[in-house]
Each structure stands twice: as C-alpha cells, then as structure tokens.
C-alpha cells in the first residue's frame, strides 16, 4: 500500500512539473508579446514611421533604420544565396571524398556556433579595415552573409537529399550531363526548401545586432540603395539598442521592438506554412 502511495505521489508530482514548465514557457512568451505591444501602441505615429530624426524639430523617426534593415537584408541575400546553395550542391551532388565532405561539414557547423560578437569583430578587421570598406552597410551585409551561410546550406542540403535518386538517373539516362541534370531537374525540385532557408536566414538577419555594431555603424540617414551600401547606417535592432540604452527613449524603443516582434511573427508563420507544404509534397 505504501509503495502504491509512493507511486501515485511520484506520478502526480512529475506530471505537475511537466504541466507547470509548459505553462511557464507559454506565459513568458505571452507576457513578452503582450507587454511590448501594449506599451508600444500609444507611441505609434505616422510621423515616427515616416521621417528621419531631426534635431531642429526635436523629433525622432525610424524610417532610416527601416530602410537600412531592408537594404542590408537584400544585400545579404544577394551574396548568401549563390554561396550557400552552391556549397550545398557541392556537398550533396559532387563531393565524393567522404573525408573532405566531413571536414567541410565540420567547418559549416563551426560557423554556426561562432557567436555574433566574434563575427562583428572579425568583420570589422577583415571587411572594414583590410578591404577598406569602412563602417558601411556593405561590410555589415558581408558579415551577415558568412553568419547565415550555415542556415542556407543546411536547408538546401536537406531538400537536395530528399530529391529521389531516380530523378537524377532518369535525366542521366536521357543523356543529360551532371550540371544539366542539376540545373533542370534537381534544383527546381528544391525551390521550396531554398525559400524556407531564405526566410529563416532573413529572420536571423533582422534580429542581429552584435555583429552589426562595429561593421554597419549607427548613422540615421535616408539614402538610396547604392549610397546606403557604402555609408554607415543603423538597422532596427541597433537603433533599438541605442535608443533604449544610450538615449533612454523607451517610447521609440518600444515601437521598434513591436515592429521586430511583428516581423518575427510574420516570418514564423510563413516558414511553418511553407514547411507544411514541403511535407505534403510526395515524390
């Protein structure tokens, strides 16, 4: 009987822990979202979203930061897509030597594990100083490119590996050479996977701040795409840090935080829709 009682207690206590931990997790996320949106909504205004900071009128606007964020995401994607997809194609389709493949995969894993502050530092040394790009959005985008390579490579590789071998054999059988088969048969099957990888990478770029502090800088100027790439500019995350920590403008910080949360909600939603679509696809 005593044993039976012990078992019941054990069962209920362990079950309680499981429920409590889950509830706590959900509550924390719920609190973060609710807190940010509730505090941000009173401060939203068209003026804040559509102007640049002006010392004369003593107003703050986040338009330059929004534009810089968009520019840096576009520039990074332009670099990271060919590099990442190409490396994934090599690993899945070309690499014959298992040892070399292992070394490259280990290198990619290492890239994924390096903290962003170290990327920022090395990006500053290599891109800003050695290549003479100074603190500019281009230097920031190049730094983000290397940071996001692992994400793109991994998702592309997964979808390349899911294309059945018979597709390749069929196209070889019809006389295609390797590149032709990859270009016309294998890669088109992987578009969904590559797009998912891109979305995940964009999420990471949007949230990145430590790597951009020293590479992309802090300026709040409205520029065209080409000018912006060669000049310093702060993204939304960096602006949030500066407004909150250094200038004490919590109202602006809350608005930026709300924008960031909205973006990550959107990205999560799209990514999960897409991956469901991929799962439903049967070869």
């Amino acid at each position: 009987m005593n044993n039976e009682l012990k078992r019941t207690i054990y069962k209920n206590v362990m079950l309680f822990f499981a429920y409590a931990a889950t509830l706590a997790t959900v509550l924390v996320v719920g609190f973060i979202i609710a807190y940010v949106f509730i505090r941000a909504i009173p401060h939203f205004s068209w003026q804040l979203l559509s102007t640049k900071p002006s010392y004369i009128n003593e107003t703050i606007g986040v338009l330059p930061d929004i534009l810089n964020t968009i520019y840096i995401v576009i520039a990074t994607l332009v670099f990271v897509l060919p590099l990442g997809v190409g490396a994934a194609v090599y690993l899945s389709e070309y690499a014959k030597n298992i040892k070399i493949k292992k070394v490259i995969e280990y290198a990619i894993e290492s890239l994924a594990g390096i903290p962003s502050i170290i990327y920022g530092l090395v990006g500053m040394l290599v891109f800003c100083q050695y290549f003479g790009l100074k603190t500019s959005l281009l230097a920031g985008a190049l730094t983000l490119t290397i940071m996001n390579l692992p994400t793109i490579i991994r998702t592309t590789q997964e979808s390349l590996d899911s294309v059945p071998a018979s597709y390749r054999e069929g196209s070889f059988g019809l006389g295609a050479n390797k590149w032709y088969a990859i270009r016309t048969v294998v890669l088109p099957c992987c578009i969904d996977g590559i797009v998912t990888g891109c979305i995940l990478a964009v999420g990471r770029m949007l949230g990145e701040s430590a790597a951009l502090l020293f590479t992309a800088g802090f300026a709040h100027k409205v520029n065209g795409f080409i000018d912006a790439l060669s000049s310093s500019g702060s993204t939304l995350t960096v602006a949030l840090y500066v407004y909150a920590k250094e200038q004490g403008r919590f109202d602006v910080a809350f608005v930026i935080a709300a924008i960031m949360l909205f973006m990550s909600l959107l990205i999560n939603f799209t990514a999960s829709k897409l991956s469901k679509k991929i799962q439903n696809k049967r070869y």
Partner: protein
Amino acid sequence: MKLKKHQECTDKIATVVFTSLGYLNIVFVAVICLYLVVSGIPAIGKIGFVDFIFGTKWASTSTVPSFGILPFILTSIYGTLGAILIGLPLGFFCSVYLAKFAPLKIKQFVESTVDLLAGIPSVVFGFIGMLVLVPGIQSIFDVPDGSSLLAAILVLSIMILPSIIKVSIGSIEAVPNEYELGSLALGANKVETVYKVVVPAARRGIGVAVVLGVGRAIGEAMAVMMVAGNVANMPGLFESVRFLTTAVASEMSYSAGLQRQALFSIALVLFVFIMVINALLNLVLKERGKKK
C-alpha cells in the same frame, strides 16, 4: 557536335565552381581563426599569459592599466551555468510534456510559441529585461542596483529555452516505441514509463541540447549588455558584472593601443571556449551515432 562540346565545357566549369564554393567554407573558418589568433596573441604576450587569464583586476583606461580577465571568464561561466540551471529543468519538463503527454492541438500551439520565442531578437530580450527584471530584482531583493548577474542569468535562461526544448523533443520522440510498450506491459504507468524508461534512453540527445544551450548562452552579447550592469567586478549574484562578450562590445568603440589588442585577446579566449564546446558537441553526437 559543337553543342556537345559546349555542354561538356559548362559541365566542367560547374564542377569547378561548386567545388570551390564548398571549399570556401573551410577558408572562411580558417580566416576567422587566423585573424583572431594573429590579433589576439600580441596583447597576451605583452601582458603575460598568467597575468592576463588569472589577473583579477581590469582597469584598461587608468594611468597604470591592468588587464586581468578572470572576472569576465568567471562571470561568463557562472552566467552560463546559472542559465542552464534554470533553463534546463524548465525546457526538459516542457519537452517531456510536449513529446509524450500533450494533445496534438496543444502541442502544435506550444511548439509555435517556442518557435516565436526563438525568433525574438536578443535586443528585445535585453530591453524587456532592462525594464522589467532589473527594477523587479531591485525591489524584491532590496539591492541598490538591479543590473546584476542574476538579471543576466534570468534573461539567458529564457533565451536558451527554444534550443533546449526543440532538441529534447526530437530526441525523446526518437526513442523506439517498443521501449514504452515493454514498460507499460510490465505494469508501470505512463508517467513512470516516460521518466524512467524513455527519458534515460534519450539522455544523449538531452546532453546535446544542454551543450547547444551553453553555446548560445556563452556567446550572447547584446541582451546581457543591457541587463548585467557592465562593471568589471568579480561575479556575485547581485553584483554588476561584465561577461567576455560584453567586455569586447562595450570598449571596442573607443579603444586604442594595448587596450584594443587586449580586447582582441578576450575575443580569442571566447573563441577558444566556443571551439571546445563545438568539439564536445561533436563528440557527444559521434558517440550517439556509434551506439546506434
């Protein structure tokens, strides 16, 4: 005939291009290592390895500067351990519930919540920590300043939750169903089965989750910078402290000379930590592969 030659040519070019793109990743890692080592070694040489690593005083801008980074190293270690201490049980029990007890609808909902948590930028965590945790700690524990190691630990423990939960769920679900059925057939109830049969079988995967969490916690800079107070004290729970990451970030913009070189050396130390963690991760994964 001409067409065929053209095609062969492009095929060869494609092979070369893809091969070099593959190898490029090794180059990137090598360049990062090289730059960190080359720019990190001089200061360690000038300050002296022992004085640098085990020196307890960091005063980079005083007239007689001293560069001891033991406070940063210890703070990073304590902060990471603290984050694991809170984040692991929370993430572990949550993933057990999601993998084994939760109805499908609830599981999907909580999983998407966790995904959302993973997508929140670190500055937002830092910002909320700054406005909620710091004043909270100040009033609850009645300390002069709430910006402390404790605040950093709490923020980090929430930030590592998603990686712990996701990896743990995966490894718990990967345990063969026969284990569970066998245990149930012997008369154990569902809860006992899950905690005493399934979880031990998934322990390596949970180990991987812990290592990933450690990696994320030790490398986090911005969130910590906003809540930890950023003073180079030896770590104490209510002390204002500086991590390895924040030591680099907070002085970089105005540093020069030996101070700047010393910051690169701190980054090198951090990098060594991360590489050790990566190697550990690979070891755990490899042993798991062998077992199967």
